[in-house]
């Protein structure tokens, strides 16, 4: 059984068929990438899996469970974490607090215990902190721990967002253009982290990315989409050689990530 099964997924916004009949499966421990020109519907696929959007048609199954009918906040507790193409952090909190907010699905205290700060709350806080520190160490964020998000450079924010997703302790992580806007060195770092996530943390990665170098380096399989429809699936090399894919990219000259 595959970890994630997407079956004939479609969503139409009025006349716009943002996603129109996309099917794929992601196996446990795999790095699966989705590529395609801007406006192809890649982020919309993520938003459908996150349950931000309700599909017009199709099914999404995770770990054998149909998640098509769940609410957005019921997705993270299953072990699905995500980042956003346009960074969505809590700007007025520190890096540490942003990561701690990623521990929400693991909270074991209620608001009354929290308000009285009973010993259990302190014990839990220590445990959350320990987990978050592991993430900080993994992503080398020590230097930024106490810094407010609002003052951080773009590249660091992208990393913090990955860190917040990892703090959930997910099985599957959805990365929406993790390398867009990053320098070459920073992109290489992202490639290492993705490989470590898979190897050391046993994570499954579903990624949207334009940087074909990165996609080729880390992905087991690649799905190309255009105009909401699947074009080709296979290894990075196979997909890049596919005539439909070539046509799609030539037909829509690639711009910078929108």
């Amino acid at each position, binding site marked *: 059984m595959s970890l994630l099964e997407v079956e004939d997924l479609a969503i139409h916004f009025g006349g716009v068929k943002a996603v129109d009949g996309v099917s794929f499966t992601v196996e446990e421990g795999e790095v699966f990438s989705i590529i395609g020109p801007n406006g192809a519907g890649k982020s919309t696929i993520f938003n459908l899996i996150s349950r931000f959007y309700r599909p017009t048609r199709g099914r999404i199954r995770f770990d054998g469970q149909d998640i098509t009918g769940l609410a957005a*906040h019921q997705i993270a507790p299953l072990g699905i974490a995500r980042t956003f193409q346009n960074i969505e*952090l809590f700007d*007025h909190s520190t890096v540490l607090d942003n990561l701690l907010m990623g521990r929400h699905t693991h909270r074991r*205290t209620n608001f009354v215990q929290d308000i*009285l700060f009973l010993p259990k709350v302190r014990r839990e806080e220590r445990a959350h902190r320990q987990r978050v520190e592991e993430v900080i160490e993994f992503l080398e964020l020590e230097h930024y721990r106490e810094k407010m998000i609002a003052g951080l450079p773009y590249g660091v924010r992208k990393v913090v967002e990955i860190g917040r997703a990892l703090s959930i302790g997910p099985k599957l992580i959805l990365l929406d253009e993790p390398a867009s806007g990053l320098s070459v060195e920073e992109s290489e770092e992202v490639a290492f982290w993705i490989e470590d996530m898979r190897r050391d943390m046993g994570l499954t990665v579903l990624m949207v990315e334009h940087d074909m170098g990165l996609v080729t380096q880390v992905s087991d399989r690649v799905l190309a989409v255009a105009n909401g429809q699947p074009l080709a699936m296979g290894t990075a090399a196979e997909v890049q050689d596919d005539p439909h894919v070539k046509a799609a990219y030539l037909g829509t000259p690639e711009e910078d990530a929108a």
Partner: protein
Amino acid sequence: MRFVFKTSYDRDIDLHKDGWSRARIALLVVIFALLPFAVGDYYLAEAANTLIWALAGMGLMILVGHTGLPSLGHAAFLAIGAYTDAALMNAGLPFLVSFPLAGLAAGVFGAIVAIPAVRMSGIYLAIATLALFVIVEEMVIILEPITGGVGGIFAPSIEIAGIGFDRYANLANFYWLVLAIVVAVTWCYANLLRSPTGRSFLAVRDSEVSARALGINVTATRALSFGLSAGVTGLAGGLMGHFIGFFNYEAFSIFISINLLLVVTIGGLGFIQGAFFGAILITAVPQLLAILRDGLGGWGVDISAIPGLDTAIFSLILIGFIVYEPAGLYGRYLKIKAYFTLFPLARRDMFRRNKTYVKTERMR
């Protein structure tokens, strides 16, 4: 400059980063506790009033400052607190029972009405809270047997274990009672902010999409915040009733709601301290204006001859604050403090606002 060296996670979990910060709060509480020995009845009553406003301000701060939701109806929760407490005491319950129940009544009412309301956003929610206020006001008038209707109601004298805490007969005791309640609520509020519940409020405030992606139920979180906010404001209402002594629905007008909003915005949104700074300003300015009026009267200038002039001056001061100190009084305090702790390294551009880039609107 002072550095804090951290040796364990507990350092960050503790309310105070070091002994110095703890000592400063302790000193502040002691100064407040000794106030009855230092000032006369008039100013002591004013101080009690300021503390009650700070309590109400903390209630609204939870909602506006830490969850990012507006409310134009918080006077309603003050009213619910005041009437519940007075009515239960009139029915024979002691203050120690009626007072928590007053907070609970306001809190539960707030949470229940919040569940449908918090699905709205921005201006719509503000209007809904305004409607809530009007409904509560009408209810107060209709429920005459309990509330005294238009005529009003007496808040009975407080007595705990045979000791009187009457606002007039034992003003110092009343003041200490208010202080103890304010200290307790402040402690709870600080705990909230360092716990998962408080973090979920901030998450909902700063990015609703992210909050949902992290598994936070936005509607439930907002309703909880609304309930806690209403509950704390209800407690303040209970005390306010005793402070005023005899009140009717007019004591909790829409202007009280607006003054409360001013307390939190002028004090500094998103800081507990802001509620205190704001409460001091909002209660002190009318006093200062009264002193000014008397002073000018001595010079032969009578500003009370022009109706509404002191209200206009009051408003101008408030507008000035909103325009020139958008981070509030507490924000100004932080800047001054940073200037001195970093002296002589402080730079003028240190507090310039960082440009934050545009987030996607598509997800909203």
